[in-house]
């Protein structure tokens, strides 16, 4: 953990200050383009040091955990400390495969956008462990309210990639009928809520969904997802109030990938505190976790899910990670941060770290890894080819009929929409 500079108090507050000019503080990241990457601002706890509390703790009892950092994997790839649960080989294999396929899929779709086959794409590079490991502790019937960067939730369930690609291409097989921007999926059967393009709105909805489950005496839990930047929205705070008040069975995830498009996490309030600390004030037990450590993400997600399932209430988790790629295909990060930032990110690459651990445990090898990479790249290429045969943005004749625009506005189409559809002549 970085040491706080010991500051001399300016004044005790008893003396009246003489009039002086005020000035506005505007947070500024440590580094900008051309600077040497510097992550000394990230508070990192030693591996294995953070305790694993009982499930029924209160927010106040574990307030230190909001400022600490749960870490399991050390630099040598060994699992350490109270959060190190021995995971079965097939769990680790499944996790690694899901992360690698997520990355391969992102690579392929990013390329498709560059070729003009779709309007837009968003990668999750460097953040794959978080959604993949969390999904692996969920059960059928639970509901996630993802942002646009949680495609890992789908890969962890081996969700059919063709269905995802069809949505990205808005083609004739797109289940959402070309209505939504690429990657704003809706897959109810996979416990994947319809993604809104409006930030933070769904955080409170996750709480409401979980309250619904509690009202009905059901056993389902919900997961809310939000980025560091979006925690500034009112809906984030409403979610914590409701979750705390009603002890909703919900996991509230914050993915702190250090950036919100061009603004660093300090602009969202991460300069003077950590985001996990927000939970303490609302009475929601909160933890800060190394998000690039698959084992830590799995263990903490499992702990939080167990709390929710035992009716012990919500958990707020801040996952520390780094947005390795551009915000989206419309963004150029070299304009606002050092080009080689990610290479210096102190928590590494989640895929490399799990790979190292598995090699250490004798379950995996470099050769197998290279082979798997090639296999997934090929899988994505073949799938994309098939999806493209159903239409892309360059082959609009395959798009869903414009008439469908008028459907599902309401269950029953009102007369004025019927007339407008006629007017359109479709």
């Amino acid at each position, binding site marked *: 953990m970085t040491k706080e500079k010991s500051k001399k108090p300016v004044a005790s507050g008893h003396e009246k200050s003489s009039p002086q000019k005020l000035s*506005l503080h505007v947070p500024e990241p440590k580094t900008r383009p051309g600077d040497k990457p510097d992550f000394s601002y990230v508070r990192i706890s030693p591996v294995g040091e953070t305790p694993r509390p009982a499930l029924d703790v209160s927010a106040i009892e574990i307030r230190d955990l909001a400022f600490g950092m749960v870490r399991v994997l050390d630099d040598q790839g060994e699992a350490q400390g109270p959060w190190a649960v021995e995971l079965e080989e097939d769990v680790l294999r499944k996790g690694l495969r899901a992360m690698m396929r997520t990355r391969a899929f992102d690579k392929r779709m990013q390329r498709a956008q560059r070729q003009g086959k779709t309007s837009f794409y968003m990668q999750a590079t460097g953040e794959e462990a978080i959604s993949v490991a969390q999904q692996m502790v969920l059960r059928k019937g639970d509901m996630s309210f993802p942002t646009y960067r949680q495609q890992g939730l789908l890969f962890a369930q081996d969700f059919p990639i063709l269905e995802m690609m069809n949505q990205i291409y808005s083609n004739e097989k797109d289940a959402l009928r070309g209505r939504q921007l690429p990657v704003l999926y809706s897959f109810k059967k996979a416990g994947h809520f319809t993604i809104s*393009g*409006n930030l*933070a709105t769904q955080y409170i909805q996750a709480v409401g969904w979980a309250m619904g489950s509690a009202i009905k005496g059901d056993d389902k839990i919900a997961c809310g997802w939000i980025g560091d*930047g979006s925690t500034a929205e009112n*809906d984030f705070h409403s979610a914590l109030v409701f979750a705390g008040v009603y002890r909703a069975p919900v996991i509230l995830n914050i993915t702190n990938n250090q950036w919100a498009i061009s603004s660093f996490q300090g602009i969202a309030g991460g300069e003077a505190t950590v985001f996990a600390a927000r939970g303490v004030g609302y009475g929601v037990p909160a933890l800060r976790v190394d998000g690039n450590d698959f084992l830590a993400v799995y263990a903490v997600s499992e702990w939080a899910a167990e709390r929710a399932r035992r009716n012990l209430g919500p958990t707020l988790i801040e996952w520390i990670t780094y947005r390795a790629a551009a915000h989206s295909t419309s963004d150029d990060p070299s304009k606002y941060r050092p080009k080689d930032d990610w290479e210096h990110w102190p928590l590494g690459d989640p895929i490399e770290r799990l790979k190292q651990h598995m090699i250490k445990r004798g379950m995996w090898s470099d050769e197998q890894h290279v082979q798997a990479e090639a296999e997934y790249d090929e899988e994505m290429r073949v799938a994309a080819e098939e999806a493209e045969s159903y239409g892309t943005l360059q082959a609009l004749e395959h798009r869903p009929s414009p008439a469908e*625009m008028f459907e599902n506005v309401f269950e029953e189409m009102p007369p*004025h929409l019927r007339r407008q559809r006629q007017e*359109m002549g479709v």
Partner: protein
Amino acid sequence: MSMIEAIRDAHDVMMARDENVVVFGEDAGYFGGVFRCTEGLQQKYGKHRAFDAPISESGIVGAAIGMATYGLRPCVEIQFADYVYPAYDQIVSEAARIRHRSNGEFTCPMVVRMPVGGGIFGGQTHSQSVEAIFTHVVGLKVVMPSNPRDAKGLLIASIEDPDPVIFLEPKRIYNGPFDGHHERPVVPWSKHEDGQVKTGYYKTELGKAAIAREGREVTILTYGTMVHVALAAAEETGVDAEIIDLRTLLPLDQEAIEASVNKTGRCIVVHEATRTSGFGAELCALVQRHCFYALEAPIIRVTGYDTPYPHVNEWDYFPSPERVGEAMKQILEA
């Protein structure tokens, strides 16, 4: 000058003239905004006058109101109009009424800028036209330019205005006058007469419409991107349309509207926004009331359909020159 450069220039002129002008919004500081409309302002005027805001639209507008009532002239950016809704309470219940409820003791001279409209394959969260939800609110001025020259003059006038102004920027014409022909490349503003923007300070008065094209056969009431679509429609059909670019929706230039409709005897209203309770309804009511005896045919509205803005079917939805042209022919036959 592109519309982006013109907007940037208006900020620059006003920040240089008036130390009370401050600018902030999501990604609007160091980076200069996702559309680059505030690029360079932080570097030139300092972080305390041009800065990044947390992702909180209600926070951005609420803070701007606080600054405005303190005595500053904040000009803030909402990244896309589609994201203004969290700020709606601050705009409607607060900014719009502070003057009235305090009997002028407190006032709110602030500008809330936001890109509006479609044509960029942005789907339902990057394409909406929100003008009517603001024109329906008492106490707000609502402005929408259709070219760089007006954008600069109107923004300067908005920043100097003593009351809150909602400044809507049609993003599809940021770089050139898009006329609905998506299959053709857009000619950049630098090659267009309205892209010739004067340097330095000038104002385009709020509440004054412009005649984008003089004509005798039919009046087209429109604004923003649709001005260019209507111009293309007139060109392609050969209909001698008079195209009124409203520029300010509130206060509205009723005189210009009446003069034109009384001359042509026919009226078409064109907007991108959804139809029901759209701003076109207000225009129809006004024309009906004041030009009834001059009208030779029922007024026609050409608008977006009453569905969420689509992604892949964008060009079926976006009011095209063909649709506007059809309406022109139809109203002349009536």
